């Protein structure tokens, strides 16, 4: 196997991992604080991508500069979802929360189709022509920017959670909601904040996908959301470090493992493509992790 091809594919794996991490962290923030699994998280990615698309289209700004605006818009959307949908049913049973979030998938997809049609839309990165070439490896600048943006998001989140009063209050709420309430923390405000941050991270993921040439349509969020759920379960529900490690592992494994499989059967004289096995590989990893460690890599047993 050519080393250049291997390194090139490793880069694609890290890129895919970045998108998974951003989505999975949002899911984990919401689950950590509210103990709610938001199945409509992929739709927040879709709305974030649309927000970037429309702001970019009307303003003509550099699409990377548009991302903070899309994050703010989606944070507001997240607050509305929490206030209007999840808060009224909190504590009424897990089944209600699950069906509510499943219902939101169809609601957001259909609303997007009504408002913006099912046509696919794309934007053009100003750096799409710029690449760094190292031997046989081609590194488009857009992907380097995406890896840097993801790292900045993660560092900012870490600083917020460790240093800021609100961040510490969120951590306290996620560790013990009742004790946090007794300590005077407004846990409902923490719910809103977790949804706002989760939606903002999803908006970042959606915007970065769009900038790298993915087309946005009302149904674009479904597949990344499934991958993000796998990341969350592998890393451990509610664990931010778990999401980072699992996201990178999954992104790299999905891209590298098919190559190894193809190479291995090639040694046997067979020609087969395993590129369509990406999701299968993700779920094989998920099954292995669950069998060995049912709570995920960094998950903790519920008391």
């Amino acid at each position: 196997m050519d080393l250049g091809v291997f390194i090139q594919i490793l880069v694609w794996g890290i890129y895919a991992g970045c998108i998974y991490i951003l989505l999975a962290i949002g899911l984990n923030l919401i689950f950590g604080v509210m103990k709610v699994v938001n199945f409509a998280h992929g739709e927040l990615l879709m709305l974030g991508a649309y927000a970037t698309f429309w702001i970019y289209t009307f303003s003509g700004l550099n699409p990377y500069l548009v991302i903070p605006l899309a994050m703010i818009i989606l944070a507001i959307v997240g607050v509305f979802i929490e206030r209007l949908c999840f808060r009224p049913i909190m504590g009424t049973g897990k089944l209600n929360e699950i069906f509510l979030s499943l219902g939101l998938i169809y609601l957001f997809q259909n609303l997007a189709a009504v408002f913006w049609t099912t046509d696919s839309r794309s934007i053009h990165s100003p750096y799409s022509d710029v690449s760094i070439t190292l031997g046989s490896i081609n590194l488009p600048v857009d992907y380097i920017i995406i890896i840097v943006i993801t790292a900045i998001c993660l560092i900012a989140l870490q600083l917020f959670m460790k240093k800021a009063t609100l961040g510490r209050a969120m951590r306290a709420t996620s560790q013990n909601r009742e004790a946090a309430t007794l300590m005077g923390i407004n846990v409902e405000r923490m719910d809103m904040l977790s949804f706002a941050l989760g939606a903002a991270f999803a908006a970042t993921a959606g915007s970065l996908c769009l900038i790298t040439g993915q087309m946005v349509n009302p149904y674009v969020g479904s597949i990344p959301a499934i991958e993000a759920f796998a990341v969350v379960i592998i890393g451990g529900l509610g664990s931010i470090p778990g999401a980072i490690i699992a996201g990178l592992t999954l992104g790299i494994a999905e891209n590298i493992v098919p190559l190894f499989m193809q190479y291995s059967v090639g040694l046997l004289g067979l020609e087969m493509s395993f590129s369509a096995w990406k999701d299968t590989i993700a779920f094989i990893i998920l099954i292995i992790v669950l069998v060995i460690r049912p709570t995920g890599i960094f998950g903790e047993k519920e008391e």
Partner: protein
Amino acid sequence: MKYGILIAVLAVSLLVAGCVEQPKETQQGVEEIRIGVVAPLTGGASTTGTDMWQAAVLAADEINAQGGVLVNGTYLKVKLFKGDTETSREGGVKVVTKLITNDEVDFLIGGFSSGITYADQVVAAEHKVPFIITGASSPIITRRDDIDTSYFFHHCPTTDDYPDSTLLFVDEIVKPLIDERYNFPENRTLRLGVIYQDSKYGEGVYDGIKKAIEEHNLNMEIVSAEKFKMSETDFRTPLTVMKAANPDVVYPAAFLNEQALIVSQGRRDVGLDTIYLSVECNDDTDYYTGVEKWGEYSIQESRFGPYVIPAGPISSAVVKFKADFENKWGAPPSMMGASTYEGVYIAAEAIKNLGGTLDKEEIRASLAELEIPQIIEVMQNGVITFSPDYRESKFDLYMEQLIWNETVGETRPKIVWPDSVKETDFVLPDWYKPGGP
């Protein structure tokens, strides 16, 4: 009490349903031709499905504006019924059952996606309802032997037809230019990369490629074949693997969104600067927008596109159809819309020959013997007729090359093959990189 109300509501509903007059036939005989349009009106392929429905409505309106279909001195109106497959196999089965048992349609027209049609045609076969398939490309639709396919009539090119024409074009036009520019010997074998969807459609095109190479004894070899899952959005890894195999030409068998990403990721991210071929379903306005400048100089196989009108006897009919469609619906028609529009006319012509009956076996026989002039797509020998073996109509396909248009900021297609409809010569771009020696 609760159950009492429920039973009362049910009883009243049944009574009302029984009293409603069914308009299909009166005591005097047939009043209308009932056609079910099977298309994905919601879900992932709803843009195409809506277009198919709108084209069918346009055809029905045109026929009805003339009074209807003249049968035995009486005019029968065409009445369409919406059949939304929801872009799923289950949805297709459900809606075809509803169209047949509830709406009692005489014909089914449409059927986008081979996978969905493969599932829902079973219902049509059981009830022996004639189905003019205008959107599913796998030849298996009329060739499978586990059901009675004699009621299915395939009015769109199959996955065998696409590669046949496309590779003949590559052999005749592209290969000599590559050989000439790079001083390759004439007998050098052209290196073909194939990236195809993991579906009946994708596998059908891949099989068609192998068949075309063998049947026409083309000097080509497949040096890389990569499979991907339907709706995939990340093609960087398979394209990187493909680049390492040094193909001269890359042939994706993909849907619109996938094709645009394959071309853009291939050229921008992977640096696979080659000639990309494209299956006809991507000849759509959305594709030209989505593929951006990366699609420049790629090849689009087609039979009906938004931006070209092939020269010849049908050009005025195409112009009129496009204008009427755009006036009625505010957007240009797509290829699937064009064949569905023709499907309604084919159904009307089949009925004309029957002398007033809507017996389904007689409709089937009439369709099997049908021979009418081409309408808005170029047909082989200028006529629409179904082959006696697998009931397939045969189209004359043409190749377009995408050329950058500064005014609109997108690429636009120009027909480069065959000579009978050619607008300009094929160009091998300066940035093109050939495969291995």
